[in-house]
């Protein structure tokens, strides 16, 4: 390689079987123009220390496995490149606001529970038989939810969210985006089942409008916009409750 250089990568280590607390270990890693941060970690694991632990899979920014804090910023490590940090060094740490399982791998259970809690599936009163074909949905109707359906569940937004860091009962950016994704889908009739969560303390009102979630999102989902629309829906829902006998939604 014509431009082979070396960079120092500091990695946070934590082994639950032997360590009382995390510590930093430094490695020197060769890189070129195309070496991602993930590839740097893979180099360490293959050649320097096989015990370094981190998640990865697709290495093309769509599976959502490889999020890390890179110099304090939540990033997909396959989508960040060592060249952009040189001649400085990198510090790679596990995603913030999650318990560490080992080294750079965090516990994702809380997010999975929150995802399930928003009922991320199409809810209908009557299911149309498959023999009657698809539901019609214009491109405009698709565009009202498509962006929010593009979330890869990488959890970067949770690491960016100060509210989730303070109190992890907050449903959080990705799950609220997916909640809004289904509420905004013309095929769905389940809004009334999701609004109690939207309206609750753990719902959209927990958000303090920092907007860092949208900044770090690698897929331009813009969770802050989804949360804001949730706030509009929640406000409407509140007022409509006084005006209609069955409550505001779906009417």
């Amino acid at each position: 390689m014509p431009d082979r250089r070396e960079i120092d990568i500091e990695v946070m280590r934590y082994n639950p079987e032997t360590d009382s607390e995390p510590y930093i270990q430094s490695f020197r890693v060769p890189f070129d123009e195309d070496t991602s941060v993930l590839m740097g970690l893979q180099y360490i694991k293959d050649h320097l220390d096989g015990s370094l632990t981190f998640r990865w899979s697709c290495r093309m920014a769509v599976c959502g496995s490889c999020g890390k804090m890179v110099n304090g910023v939540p990033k997909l490590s396959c989508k960040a490149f060592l060249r952009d940090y040189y001649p400085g060094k990198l510090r790679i740490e596990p995603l913030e606001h999650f318990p560490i399982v080992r080294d750079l791998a965090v516990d994702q259970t809380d997010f999975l529970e929150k995802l399930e809690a928003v009922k991320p599936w199409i809810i209908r009163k009557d299911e149309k038989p498959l023999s009657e074909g698809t539901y019609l949905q214009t491109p405009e109707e698709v565009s009202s939810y498509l962006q929010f359906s593009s979330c890869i569940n990488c959890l970067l937004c949770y690491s960016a969210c100060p509210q989730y860091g303070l109190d992890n009962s907050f449903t959080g950016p990705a799950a609220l985006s997916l909640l809004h994704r289904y509420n905004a889908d013309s095929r769905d009739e389940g809004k009334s089942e999701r609004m109690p969560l939207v309206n609750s303390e753990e719902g959209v009102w927990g958000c303090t409008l920092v907007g860092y979630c949208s900044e770090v999102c690698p897929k331009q989902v813009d969770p802050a916009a989804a949360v804001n629309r949730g706030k509009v829906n929640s406000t409407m829902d509140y007022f409509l409750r006084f005006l209609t006998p069955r409550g505001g939604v779906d009417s």
Partner: protein
Amino acid sequence: MQVVSTDVAIIGGGGAGLRAAIAIAESAPELNVTLVSKVVPMRSHTVAAEGGSAGVTTEVDTLDMHFHDTVAGGDWLCDQDVVDYFVSRCTEEMIQLEHWGCPWSRQSDGHTSVRNFGGMSTARTWFAADKTGFHMLHTLFQTSMKYPAISRLDEYFACDLLVEDGRCQGLLAIEVATGDFVRVESRAVIMATGGAGRVFRQNTNAGILTGDGMGMAYRHGVSLRDMEFVQYHPTTLPGSGILITEGCRGEGGYLTNKDGNRYLQDYALGPVVTEPTPKTMELGPRDRLSQAFWHEQQKGRTITTPLGPAVHLELMHLGQRKLTERLPFIMELSKTFLGIDAAKQAIPVCPSVHYTMGGIAADGTTATALPGLYACGECSSVGIHGANRLGSNSLAELAVFGKLAGENAAAFAREQSPTTSSSLQSAADAAEARALAILARQDGSERLASVRDEMTQTMSDGIGIYRTADGMQATCDVLDGLVDRLAHVQLDDSNRAFNTEWLAAIELGFSLDVARAMAYSALNRRESRGAHVRLDEYDERDDHQFLKHTLATYEADAPPRIAYSGVNITRLPPAERVYGAAATATGDAANA
């Protein structure tokens, strides 16, 4: 050892495994389903499929045309009864996904759209922009959450099947976070672990595609079928192998060589057309396009990039608006990994290993020869892809056969008496001991990454787009030697909790078995067909000797035993595969 008792266990949480789980929950709500996956399901590699999923919908399309395209595309090595079943179910599955919320791209009147794809005689590929697999996977994953009967073991690594009294009755898994073993006892098991592209050096596959499920079934005596048929996808990024969807060509992209010529016209794929035309030029099948690249390279007409030879995929003439709407992920990948704007610059692409046409031998109902074990999706060989899969048939396959596997495994499970723990315990204990021995080894002399890298290098060297007896034999020899070396790998990490080095060593054992099945199957197929093309004296298709499925049977450390079985040809007798002008002339493009 912790024990989980369930009715049906599914290994693999990608599209096929999730579709199977939902099918069980819907068809047999009284049964419990346990979905075991080494990654949380939405990380599965279905997520990276881009271009689309086949299903006949338009007025000019017919099931017969989809059947014909698939059988001819597979160079007649497809089981035609199974292809008939497949094509007749695809559209219903696409509609089902739509009902579950999949954001299919739409026409202005609200109906779903279809696009052209390689080797298909008309537009029949449903798509969600160029993130079809992503949307299908997340739709299936999120939908699966509504069924209380489906419980998941996320990040549990399946390391062996439990076979007792001649039937599969569960599996042994390692909880990744802790390293603890769990015995999952079930009345039936569905294997849905995806492909094995990681046995090659440059491939489009995620790191998890190490052939675990194939290896597990194979070690228990189930044959791996047609493993020599490995698909090289013609348009991937040099070096990384990152996939650049065939949808680019379906939307009208061009492939050009270093002289700017659309070179596919030189390989019986012309005439040169400016609009996407079925079975013509860039819409030829993947095997032919990857072979054409190889010839261009031999002629010195490829472009040199720092990461290897390439040709140009030109999308510039499609216009920013279409690219943003139809190919947004390709635009993002080009920007991220090449630093280019694909609306203004051509994308350098080359072939990389993409798909295993073969897999765990299963019949058209997804049943394997081992009672109680079913297989679906890329890990299986149910008989629809033959010697070369057509793009967009694999996403459709995981839906159609995932559902079928779920229904059939559920029906089987209902008929079985409950498993008795004591009989399975010793099998599980033995499997646990084998896995722990890797961890406990203290006198090993080999580094895991070295063995892995030598395997992937020799597979890419010998089992390439074009093959020779000498090259394949050399690969077989190297692989044989690596079996012993793998037994001497010394891990750096002796801990149990989240020890991914340990799991990678177990994976490499599966990969090596699968690689040997591929290499020996290839060496023994003395003809050229579909994706298996030889440069030596066997450079022609030989229906007399080899219109047969290859069956590789596990022989422990010795090379696999190779045998053959018949291909079910019901109504389309073998004929010459033709594309481009010849297809139009014979009516093949429209399949009159």
